[in-house]
């Protein structure tokens, strides 16, 4: 491989905690979850324990995937990290500060399963939206750069309804990245796409992420997607969601479509799929 040294550098950057950078505010931020629980009130005194006692330290620049059965609290955990929900117990810090502070400094990027593009704005204006939402002057070069990065430079003036599902998700990811976030939150961003488009989008995301390593947390139903993208995979048990298993993915970066044919990839995939099945059947037996 001609770019082995590049791959090693990236792996070094991505894999392990880096004390020097995690202290800086502008680099990819480390995230610490301490005893995080979330209980929803259902009314009439009933409550739902969505997330229970999660402890996790995420290194700056690390890519974490959260997998688990439907309704196991993955998205709730993600929304708490993004500051969209408050934990009932425990604390979450991003670079030593609360998610709310992270939001106020515009250091967070989010992309969800629903693309959430504004139908009345062109692809370009949708990518530029975070500047306007944050009350910052629009950096037109940055917007052009991001559209080119997701391969949609020729579709800058297209409205969302004129774009395919995969294109809309790419715009959504460009929007999430445009303010150079320290933390990238991805909630099933490719969940609504067909299998082929999804694999291609994973490859794109992997490439984009290697170009600007950002602390990333991805919620997904696809073990394959998790293994392909992540440095570490957190497996959550069914409700109440706890961390059942944390698995390190030992695959070199950059990863490409042929990575999926490597034996290590197959092994990790098989192991995690078995663990996921195990955890889910345990849950249903209770």
């Amino acid at each position: 491989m001609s770019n082995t040294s590049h791959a090693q550098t990236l792996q070094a950057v991505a894999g392990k905690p880096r004390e020097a950078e995690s202290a800086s505010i502008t680099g990819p931020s480390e995230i610490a979850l301490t005893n995080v629980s979330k209980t929803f009130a259902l009314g009439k005194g009933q409550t739902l324990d969505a997330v229970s006692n999660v402890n996790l330290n995420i290194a700056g620049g690390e890519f974490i995937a959260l997998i688990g059965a439907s309704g196991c609290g993955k998205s709730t955990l993600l929304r708490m990290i993004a500051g969209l929900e408050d934990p009932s117990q425990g604390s979450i810090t991003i670079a030593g500060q609360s998610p709310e502070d992270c939001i106020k400094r515009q250091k967070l990027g989010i992309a969800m399963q629903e693309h959430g593009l504004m139908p009345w704005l062109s692809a370009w204006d949708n990518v530029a939206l975070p500047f306007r939402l944050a009350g910052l002057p629009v950096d037109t070069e940055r917007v052009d750069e991001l559209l080119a990065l997701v391969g949609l430079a020729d579709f800058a003036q297209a409205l969302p309804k004129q774009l395919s599902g995969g294109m809309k998700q790419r715009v959504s990811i460009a929007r999430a990245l445009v303010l150079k976030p320290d933390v990238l939150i991805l909630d099933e961003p490719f969940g609504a796409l067909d299998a082929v488009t999804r694999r291609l989008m994973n490859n794109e995301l992997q490439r984009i992420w290697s170009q600007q390593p950002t602390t990333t947390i991805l919620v997904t139903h696809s073990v394959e997607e998790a293994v392909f993208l992540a440095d570490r995979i957190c497996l959550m048990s069914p409700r109440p969601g706890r961390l059942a298993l944390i698995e390190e993915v030992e695959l070199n970066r950059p990863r490409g479509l042929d990575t999926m044919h490597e034996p290590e990839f197959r092994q990790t995939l098989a192991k995690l799929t078995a663990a996921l099945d195990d955890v889910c059947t345990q849950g249903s037996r209770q």
Partner: protein
Amino acid sequence: MTVAADLLKWLVGISTLMVFWEIAGRQAWLGGGLPPLSGVFAYAIEPRSTELLLRSAGITATNASYGFVIGSLIGTLIACSGQIWRPLKQGLDTLSTFVNAIPLIALGPLMIVTVGEQFTPMATAALAVFFAVFVATLGGFERVPNVHRDVTRAYGTAHWRALLLVQFPNAIPSLIDGLKLGVSTAVLGAILGEWFGAPAGLGVLIVSSMQNFQINLLWSAAIIGTVMSAAAYFLLALLQARLLRRLGL
């Protein structure tokens, strides 16, 4: 295209009604109170009556337009302010429901003694429009997709900025629905306001022709009022189709 189809349906409906009216009038099914349509037209196109009708219709149109603009603006602004200051929303909802619960017929005389005869038609028209637009705009805000709210929250966007950039554009289709409903009620509100004692307008014409048993004039005024509110509705439907296409919705 749908606008053209709507227009065709209207035309079919209206011509059926006109034929039925003509027959009913000629056969005097409802006595002297319902003259044949042709007789009403013959009366309306006499120069003296045409001049009177157009002058009155112009005044009513002006009253309805002012009322429509004022009512729409107030309705939209109040709905928007509830989005910026959340605690205000509940109170505003209750207030507007109360305002709507007061019958216009009771408000008319109150208007006469407060804003005066001159401005009562505008005020009653504005009140009628206000509620339709307020409720529709509020409904539009309720339908903002959750993922749009998440995006605005993830950037710590100020409420007023989120309103301007995300919530208001999302509410536009619903707001236009409200305007469509409101524009007909504006004409109705203006005529009602004139009825209470304005110096001139279709409402005044209707009261005086009723009291003097000028059946043809009464029907002419009623028809013109109907045509006016239908035309305004159609104009807004046209605007709606244009705007929604431009907004990509």
